[in-house]
């Protein structure tokens, strides 16, 4: 799944480590999320969206066929 986490993070000028600390995960998890190798749980997606002050859909791009009805 593609995400805009890296883009939003760079806009806010924060590091992966700082974002990881804010949402209580490891930096490696943030890296995997930005690379699309790992899909966040609902709670983690909500925390990241809250941190950036946007909605989940504005961060996580649901463009795959199996991600939509």
């Amino acid at each position: 799944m593609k995400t805009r986490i890296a883009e939003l993070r760079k806009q806010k000028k924060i590091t992966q480590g700082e974002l990881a600390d804010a949402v209580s995960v490891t930096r490696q998890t943030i890296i995997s999320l930005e690379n699309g190798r790992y899909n966040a749980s609902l709670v983690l997606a909500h925390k990241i969206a809250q941190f950036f002050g946007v909605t989940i859909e504005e961060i996580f791009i649901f463009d795959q066929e199996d991600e939509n009805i």
Partner: protein
Amino acid sequence: MKGFLCVTNAKNDEEYRAVVKKRNLYFSLAAVLGIAMTIISTWAYSRDMTDMTDISLGFFSGAGIGIAIVCVLQIILNLRLLRDDKKLHSSRVACSDERLVAIESKARNTALAVLSLVFVSGCLIGGIFYPVLIKIIGIAAAVFAVTYALSYLIYSKKM
């Protein structure tokens, strides 16, 4: 790899502190059991109270000492965590990280699948030459199947 020894659902540092203290208790018990296993097997062998071979004695005493050493090292690491709030917090985040928990779950499932395959293969092939193997591996496979079925039922009702 450390996910195997540290995965937790603790939601804050205080909860995690209690988890680490409980783990130290379990590790202490396991260390005592490991040492007991070594002592009992060596004593029984030296008194000719068992039909154990040298290889069996080596396995039991080596496993016992190994378990004790690993447990003592883990207790020391946990005590260092308990003394340092920053390290405790980092450890909690690392151990409750959802990606790590997912990796540990997948690794565990894969290992169990491989173990099941080995059990069934061992039962089918080894049983031709050593009939007792069929009983041992058959019982282990049955325990696994029953545990899986019961766990599935229980978790289905809970979730």
